[in-house]
């Protein structure tokens, strides 16, 4: 049934704003700049937006705040917040709403000024009663626990984790919009400041400002707009826990469920994927998702990434914008995954262009490895 959505809607516009540092601009101001850029990219006007999808770290009622700021009155809206994976969920929900006729032009938008507003990770996540007394450094502690367990069970090493950061930096060095650039070695990562054993500061994502947006329409309209449509092929979400202490197994995420379901909806196999955009809040994420999504067997993620396998020129193109580790990570990063996938599928990625690039897997992560949402996007050749 879910397969009925394949190719029925498309991303027709993308935009970003304030990538890296945007002093003096508020989160919603940045979000609006990205939204207008995405609409301009599509050749559509703000007045045509009748479906609004938003989640931020600073708005309790995001679609109300964003709708008011943009001056629009959407007839369909969704403020689902599952952390950084919210926007992959919005993509699925927008596809459903468009195909069912609840809206005709869907806007998904996000913005944050967390770097210049304070330089710290911004979250209004509630403290978890059974964890808070022990004062974990959230979210660092959660991901460090998963990394430690993976190292213990599968023999993954800190060098393997570091390889993920090094690959991300190599991609970032090819991306004019990336925030963190310059040479980076495995030794640099190992020698950087330990922040939550076994994760050093270079195993952790950036704290940046930034905003992103994308616009979707049904496929019949998409063909007549400014840019080549990037088609929605399938998506699925899965959630197995909220707090890290309730995670059934620290080495297996719900991506093991969302990935196969999304691929089935899209009617493609993991071997068909040209580009993997995996939410890399920490280096362990990429390893876990490569395994759980089926790019390699469980436990082999660390060995899979060795030798530059996910860096430019490697065997699998992963996080070609530089990822949350080296491109941008303004609190919730999921929408930037979609922006990069669309850029690549259009063939607009310049020096970092993946060839061929017809199918992209976009995987969002939220909370403490809690929410997992996988989406498959494709070029015109896939529908």
């Amino acid at each position: 049934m879910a397969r009925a959505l394949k190719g029925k809607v498309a991303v027709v516009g993308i935009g970003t704003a304030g990538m890296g540092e945007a002093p003096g601009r508020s989160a919603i101001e940045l979000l609006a700049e990205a939204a207008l850029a995405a609409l301009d990219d599509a050749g559509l006007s703000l007045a045509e937006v009748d479906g609004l999808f938003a989640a931020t770290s600073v708005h309790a009622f995001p679609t109300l705040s964003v709708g008011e700021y943009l001056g629009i009155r959407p007839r369909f809206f969704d403020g689902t917040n599952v952390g950084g994976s919210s926007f992959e969920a919005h993509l699925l929900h927008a596809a459903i709403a468009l195909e069912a006729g609840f809206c005709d032009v869907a806007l998904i938008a996000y913005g944050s000024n967390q770097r210049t507003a304070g330089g710290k990770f911004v979250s209004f996540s509630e403290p978890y009663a059974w964890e808070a007394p022990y004062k974990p450094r959230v979210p660092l502690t959660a991901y460090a626990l998963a990394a430690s367990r993976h190292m213990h069970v599968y023999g993954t090493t800190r060098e393997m984790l570091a390889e993920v950061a090094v690959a991300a930096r190599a991609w970032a060095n090819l991306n004019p919009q990336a925030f963190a650039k310059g040479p980076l070695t495995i030794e640099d990562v190992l020698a950087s400041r330990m922040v939550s054993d076994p994760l050093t500061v270079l195993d952790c994502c950036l704290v940046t400002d930034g905003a992103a947006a994308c616009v979707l329409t049904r496929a019949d309209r998409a063909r007549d707009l400014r840019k080549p449509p990037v088609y929605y092929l399938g998506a699925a979400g899965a959630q197995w826990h909220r707090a890290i202490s309730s995670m059934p197994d620290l080495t297996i995420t719900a991506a093991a469920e969302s990935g196969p379901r999304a691929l089935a909806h899209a009617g493609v196999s993991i071997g068909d994927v040209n580009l993997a955009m995996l939410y890399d809040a920490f280096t362990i994420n990429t390893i876990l998702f490569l395994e759980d999504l089926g790019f390699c067997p469980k436990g082999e993620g660390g060995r899979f990434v060795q030798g530059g396998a996910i860096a430019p020129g490697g065997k699998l193109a992963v996080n070609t914008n530089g990822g949350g580790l080296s491109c941008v990570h303004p609190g919730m990063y999921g929408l930037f995954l979609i922006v990069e996938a669309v850029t690549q599928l259009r063939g607009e990625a310049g020096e970092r262009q993946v060839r061929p690039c017809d199918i992209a897997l976009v995987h969002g992560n939220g909370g403490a490895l809690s929410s997992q949402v996988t989406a498959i996007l494709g070029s015109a050749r896939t529908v």
Partner: protein
Amino acid sequence: MMSRVEGIPPAEVRIGLRVKARIATIDGAPQVVFDPA
């Protein structure tokens, strides 16, 4: 469950370390922590 191991430098805590539970008072409330066995 989440807890923590006390009475040992953090760098010496290992998965598989034998520990013994103890009821400690944290911020005025009873909580389970562990010491090396």
